[in-house]
């Protein structure tokens, strides 16, 4: 393959990834302060987003959560579970025909791997940014039971440009598989995402009917694979 045809092929592959991901991307409105992104994670209308995206409607907000689907349809969303220390929330919308995202094996991801973030930074819908996984590690996170109770949460950092509105959106690999949920920006130039295997555990626990306010056990081992 010559250099030009390689570049064209690369180009098409990148556009494919963006297109694939955008089919499973929603806008999550909390009715008060702006909006975040969300990922259609499983059939049945299950949408994953960040805790902090939905947190503002807690209490007795008169504004219900709702989601804008890829086809532009706006639906009310039910909050099924939330985990502040993981910055994750699980929503459900009542509709059929949603296209769930392809979920990648986040336990085998590697530093240097090419990734894309898709979200709605500054309100620009479906915005795609690219980069690589810059490091794998853990972050200390409060578990909601006081400052002394810290939990070690596996995280993946990337050099992908993120901005407010990327929150809750997916970090995807070169094949369009979701490696994690983008959650915040550290120091302006390093994005943090919660790996998909942590999201899967969170959803399993949430749907298994266990308490949703504390879905994690304290983890002392620093290896990303040992979560839960």
């Amino acid at each position, binding site marked *: *393959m010559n250099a030009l045809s*390689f570049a064209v*092929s*690369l180009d098409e*592959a*990148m556009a*494919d*990834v963006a297109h*694939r991901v955008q089919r499973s991307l929603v806008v999550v409105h909390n009715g008060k302060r702006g909006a975040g992104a969300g990922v259609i994670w499983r059939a049945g209308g299950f949408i994953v987003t960040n805790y902090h995206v939905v947190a503002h409607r807690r209490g007795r907000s008169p504004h219900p959560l709702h989601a804008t689907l890829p086809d532009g349809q706006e639906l009310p969303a039910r909050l099924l579970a939330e985990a502040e220390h993981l910055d994750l929330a699980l929503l459900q919308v009542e509709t059929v025909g949603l296209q769930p995202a392809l979920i990648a094996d986040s336990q085998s991801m*590697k*530093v*240097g*791997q*090419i990734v894309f973030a898709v979200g709605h930074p500054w309100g620009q819908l479906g915005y795609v940014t690219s*980069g*690589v*996984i*810059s*490091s*794998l*590690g853990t972050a200390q996170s409060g578990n909601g039971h006081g400052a002394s109770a810290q939990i070690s949460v596996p995280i993946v*950092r990337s*050099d992908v440009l993120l901005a407010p509105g990327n929150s809750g959106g997916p970090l995807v*690999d*070169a*094949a*369009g598989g979701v490696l994690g949920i983008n959650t915040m920006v550290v120091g302006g*130039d*390093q994005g943090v995402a919660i790996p998909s295997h942590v999201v899967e555990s969170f959803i399993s626990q949430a749907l298994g009917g266990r308490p949703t306010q504390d879905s994690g056990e304290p983890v002392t081992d*620093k290896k990303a694979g040992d979560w839960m």
Partner: protein
Amino acid sequence: MTNENNTLTALSDAMVAAVEKAGAATVAVNARRRMPASGVVYSPDLVLTADHVVEREDDISVTLPDGSTVPATIAGRDPSSDLALLRLDIPAAASAEKASAPARVGQLVLALGRPGSDGIQASLGVISAIGGPVRTGRGGLLEQYLRTDAIPYPGFSGGPLVDASGRVAGINTSGLARGASLTIPAALAWGLADTLAKHGHIRRGYLGVRSQPASITTAQQSSLGREQGSGLLLVGVESGSPAEAGGLLVGDIIVAIAGQPVSDPDELAASLAGPVVGVPTPVEVLRGGRLETIAVTIGERK
């Protein structure tokens, strides 16, 4: 639909392989109070890093990719190019491979760092520009530097900028340009490391003159026998200096040192690096419009 084996996944796999290859020779350098910095294994028992991250002379250690921490001593340092060479008490497993070809603008590169024991870190970008020469203070002159848009995360100083094949294109440092990140090209860095390994420091010559560029008339150029539009007019000769001892005078225009034309201060700094130090060296000057060659024993800048 996305093909799982397309060019994008191939590129992604290649970047992972480049990180693994170069990461195996990227170490953490523990030589300052703040967070550790990075270094590159130059040869099994030598680690190349940035001079400015080596803040102490003793109690230096290097954390290898396998997680083991090995004591190290300073084998040589050159503040002018912000490079230091550390000698490991126990050899490292893998040495870095230097890129064989010069860097090109637009080329894909990864900045790597290992600031601690939490694994390798990487950022992707391209070679944004190739610049130089640039004077770095203390008589230093970096003949060339690379710029990249790969993000230099904290602790990346002393770490490698690597190409798509995992070979080292240069050494990253934020210590040469007031905190902005520059990359010292591998060919230069390896050459300096070689000198540091042998001599422990980089010798830079000292003349003891103040000068300013001055144009050379066409008539004077004919006496040089070459086209050279400018030289360095001496406006001061320090008392007791090598220049005074050799007989250089205020008003002389230096046009060449050791046979190499000198037309601006950068070229003067370049001509004083390395082998001329301590050696009687022919200095060509225009004096009263005539070309004269004066032997000056170049001193060493302290």
